[in-house]
């Protein structure tokens, strides 16, 4: 990655025209799905998966791209959800504005959280941010004023599409969340290749060198937290709108371990990794929903195998096989010496995250 020029001319240097076509096809297929699938349960699982995807994309940015081991992301998600839900319940603000406000609440909290973590490294960061999440959860649980509803959570929140019928609103939610996923994936991929993204990876991989070259860790880390926090808050807002409620059980060690598994299996720090990991883990979880013990045992073994044998995750694995096929095809045309180095063979995932993710 260090050999690459500082700033690519296009915001998406890894995307060839063929790959744009593939991505376009995937988007069209994903958008057409609710027209084909009418089973409300299946559609519900898919919407939940997409909402998780928004959360995981936001988390991947701070965890994978910026390399800050922030384990307080679920607190930001919950803050965004509660912020949105409380505004929707207690005021007549348009629902979209309420969601935006929820995102801003999470963003402000993320910026505040970023200050103490700037002095810490690695494992200490993870504990501090996790402690932050635990405190937030306790405050929500033991809130005496009745604003958060304690362990029962918020009562029936109107949500975005309260006027639509059940089936129509499910479809509307699906498309809304899909749009958020697309926008955030594209935007964050562009950011990862911008000056900000390069600075963040520089701080992640070589903090001393980056600082010596004039990259101000303070400014960039705060920016990373702000972006990631805002998106996590939006994910929380989508959650509370779709489920019409939110409770403190969205946070904690168990959901967090599932989401970390998703990110690591997919490939931390890559653009496609969170998408692959979230969908795969969600499929396993849905199939084994009646056997929670078996589900987590399989996820744990999965995680172990992936970290030991495929450190760059599924995105990296697919990228490498893609390159091998491209090499093989290129060798058929002309017996080139080292096809692995050719530009189109570089996979979207592999260009973006180095196989070894670094501790800040």
């Amino acid at each position, binding site marked *: 990655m260090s050999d690459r020029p500082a700033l690519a001319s296009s915001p998406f240097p890894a995307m060839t025209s063929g790959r744009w076509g593939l991505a376009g096809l995937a988007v069209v297929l994903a958008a057409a799905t609710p027209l084909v699938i009418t089973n409300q349960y299946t559609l519900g699982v898919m919407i939940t998966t997409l909402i998780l995807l928004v959360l995981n994309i936001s988390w991947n940015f701070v965890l994978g791209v910026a390399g800050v081991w922030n384990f307080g992301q679920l607190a930001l998600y919950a803050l965004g959800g509660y912020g949105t839900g409380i505004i929707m319940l207690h005021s007549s603000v348009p629902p979209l504005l309420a969601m935006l406000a929820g995102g801003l609440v999470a963003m402000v909290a993320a910026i505040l959280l970023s200050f103490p973590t700037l002095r810490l490294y690695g*494992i*200490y960061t993870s504990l501090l941010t996790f*402690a932050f999440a635990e405190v937030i959860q306790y405050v929500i649980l033991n809130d005496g004023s009745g604003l958060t509803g304690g362990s029962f959570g918020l009562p029936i929140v109107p949500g975005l599409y309260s006027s639509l019928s059940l089936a129509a609103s499910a479809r509307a939610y699906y498309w809304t969340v899909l749009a958020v996923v697309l926008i955030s994936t594209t935007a964050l991929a562009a950011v990862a290749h911008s000056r900000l993204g390069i600075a963040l990876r520089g701080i992640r991989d070589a903090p001393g060198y980056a600082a010596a070259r004039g990259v101000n860790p303070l400014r960039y880390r705060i920016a990373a937290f702000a972006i990631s926090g805002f998106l996590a808050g939006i994910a929380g807002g989508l959650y509370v709108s779709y489920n019409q409620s939110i409770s403190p059980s969205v946070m904690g*060690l168990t959901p967090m371990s599932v989401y970390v598994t998703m990110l690591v299996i997919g490939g931390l720090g890559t653009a496609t990794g969170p998408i692959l990991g979230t969908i795969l883990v969600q499929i396993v979880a849905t199939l084994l929903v009646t056997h*929670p013990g078996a589900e987590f*045992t399989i996820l744990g073994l999965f995680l172990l195998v992936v970290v*030991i044998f495929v450190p760059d995750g599924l995105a990296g694995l697919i990228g490498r096989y893609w390159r091998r096929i491209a090499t093989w095809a290129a060798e058929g045309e002309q017996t080139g010496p080292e096809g692995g180095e050719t530009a189109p063979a570089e996979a979207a995932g592999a260009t973006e995250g180095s196989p070894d993710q670094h501790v800040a």
Partner: protein
Amino acid sequence: MSATDIVGIAVTTIILGSIYGLVAIGMTLIYGTLRILDMSQGSMVMVGSFIAWGILVVAGWNPTLAIIAAFIATFILGALTQLVSVQPLMRRRNAIDFEMVTFITTFAVAMVLTNVALEIFGPFQRNVTPVVTGSISVYHGVDLPYQELTMALVSIMLMAGLGVFLARTRWGMAIRAVAQDLDAARLMGVPVGKLYPLTMGLASALAGVAGVFLGGLYFAYPQAGDLPLLEALIVVIFGGLGSLPGTVYAAYAIGLIQATAEVIVGTTWSLPILYGVILLVLIVRPYGLLGKPSEARL
């Protein structure tokens, strides 16, 4: 605050501190030697609790046997955990992400152990017979159950035993040598390959013994290790990663904070107050009480 409260706080501090210390000292030992934060230590507590349940309740045998069985079983399990989840990664030992990668793999082991227990035993909380019953009155209104007293004594003995082991024995000195300088230790002929599983087995065995007592205090159930793991993490970070004396001080300091908070504001708020204190400590001292920036050694 009355005298009863103060005596109560002192007694609770010693008991909590000893048990936190027993779990946390294993994590410190592992961090000092292997540079990894072992997230599977909580599961070892859970396994210890289930062994205590099996031997004391199902089989109805002697409590001493439960302690010995838990020690041996979790020793083997801990050594296996090292061989499965850490040894394959040792060649990446000098990579900057080693700490985080092993954090994830040991966490995966914890996930597997917890959920295998869930599949076998179900989610129920099982009562474990206390190792010893009865209690003595320390002061007006302050009773000290023998179970907790024994727990504190055994913890202190094991911690002291570990100290002697590290200071005096051949293997203990080898562990310290590896913690101080891996390459020099290897050149002096220390069998590093055997030492790593030994260290993790030893640490896990301490957690397993803690589980035998904690099972009697609370219950044996698949998630029984979650809270001890969180508390041990707090202690380890508070004391400074890799510093054995720091861990022991931190264990009693955390015990004192929690005991005081329980008396003053009640049990519900004791954990969030603990986290609040940790937030403050880490903001002021980013490397814990006795930790050294980036290089904390045994």
